């Protein structure tokens, strides 16, 4: 009995220490990536290649889900706003919820699922097949050659994807509100423009997506780089990427929002 208790306590302690250890490693990894990113910016072709894989190939899922998110927002919002006789405010509702929250957050979650997992699996397999060690043998730093271009590609792609998501979502909301529900087109756009502020709403949304881009990409890269070089290790690392990125995005979203909304 007593033995069992000690064992479980020891297990908890071990886990906590392990997490803190990994956090430290991740922070060092992040710093190293930043320091060694000179090459990826000089040889920009490397980064462009990665923007293709993380950004361009994520476009379809981002745009399609944005369209549906905007359409659902339009339908749901109309239902409630109509009760208060202000169904023209639907444009404001759709635009504000997309630009402030849903654009950056949902894009980051989809990005973690679509691009983050690919990055983790790719780098994990590179480690498992000893490609990274081979690079070190050739005096090529794998962080400068493999990690940094992917990092910058993610950081560049993410705000662009979020902006496309918001724009597509507003278009989806427009499709539901104006042709389907018969809300006046002029009121839809003018109410939106009167209530969405460039600095307070749009720029803050871009800042959010930028931070999420850094978080998602660095988590995916670190999990891949740190994965045990086995098939099981890579699969676990991929799962951890999705879980940790999602948690990080939602947590960071709360922190950023509480900084931005200062009444």
């Amino acid at each position, binding site marked *: 009995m007593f033995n069992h208790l000690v064992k479980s306590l020891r297990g908890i302690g071990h886990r906590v220490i392990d997490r803190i250890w990994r956090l430290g490693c991740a922070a060092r990894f992040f710093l190293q990536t930043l320091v060694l990113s000179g090459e990826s910016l000089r040889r920009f072709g490397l980064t462009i290649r990665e923007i293709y894989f993380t950004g361009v190939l994520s476009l379809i899922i981002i745009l399609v889900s944005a369209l549906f998110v905007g359409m659902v927002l339009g339908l749901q919002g109309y239902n409630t706003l109509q009760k208060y006789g202000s169904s023209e405010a639907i444009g404001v509702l759709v*635009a504000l919820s997309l630009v402030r929250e849903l654009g950056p957050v949902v894009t980051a979650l989809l990005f973690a699922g679509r691009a983050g997992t690919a990055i983790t699996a790719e780098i994990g397999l590179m480690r498992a097949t000893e490609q990274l060690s081979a690079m070190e043998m050739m005096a090529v730093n794998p962080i400068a050659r493999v990690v940094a271009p992917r990092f910058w590609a993610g950081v560049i792609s993410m705000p662009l994807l979020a902006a496309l998501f918001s724009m597509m979502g507003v278009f989806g909301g427009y499709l539901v509100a104006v042709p389907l529900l018969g809300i006046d087109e002029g009121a839809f756009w003018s109410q939106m423009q009167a209530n969405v*502020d460039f600095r307070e709403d749009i720029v803050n949304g871009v800042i959010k997506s930028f931070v999420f881009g850094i978080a998602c990409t660095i988590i995916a890269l670190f999990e891949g780089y740190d994965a045990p070089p086995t098939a099981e290790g890579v699969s676990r690392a991929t799962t951890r990427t999705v879980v940790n990125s999602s948690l990080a995005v939602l947590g960071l979203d709360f922190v950023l929002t509480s900084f931005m909304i200062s009444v």
Partner: protein
Amino acid sequence: MDRTTLDLWVGIFVAAGVAALIGLAMKVGNLTSNPIGETYTVTAAFENIGGLKSRAPVKSAGVVVGRVDNIQFDNETFEALVTLKIDKHYNFPKDTFANIYTSGLLGEQYVGLDAGGDEVVLKNGDKITHTQDAVVLEKMISQFLYNKASEGGEKKETETAQ
């Protein structure tokens, strides 16, 4: 994949992303619908500003002519000191009235300027002296009830007198 087509796709992606950002700023945001350029600042003191917030519009005859810049509490007169930024193109007489109105029944509150008849116009840093406070619903209701009650009292008095 061929190198050039890959570059092309990335170019399309970046261009579309930047276009979406500009589209958000222009079509969704208020970057274009905010034509207030250079402004001058005037202040106005109100006893009660209700739910007025900074960045609320300043309207005259229903046209947006400026924005509320800042709201402070004056600890000497115990009044709210509202700073208004008004577009340089519009000049208002010195005896302009500043009122706090509500757009619609439950809408946001804004400052309405009713032009007076003075020859001298408001300049940067001037103070609007004629102001009218926001209508507070509770005050109105209590006043209404008070009037009703006193009316009823008078009726009773007249009844007993008869």
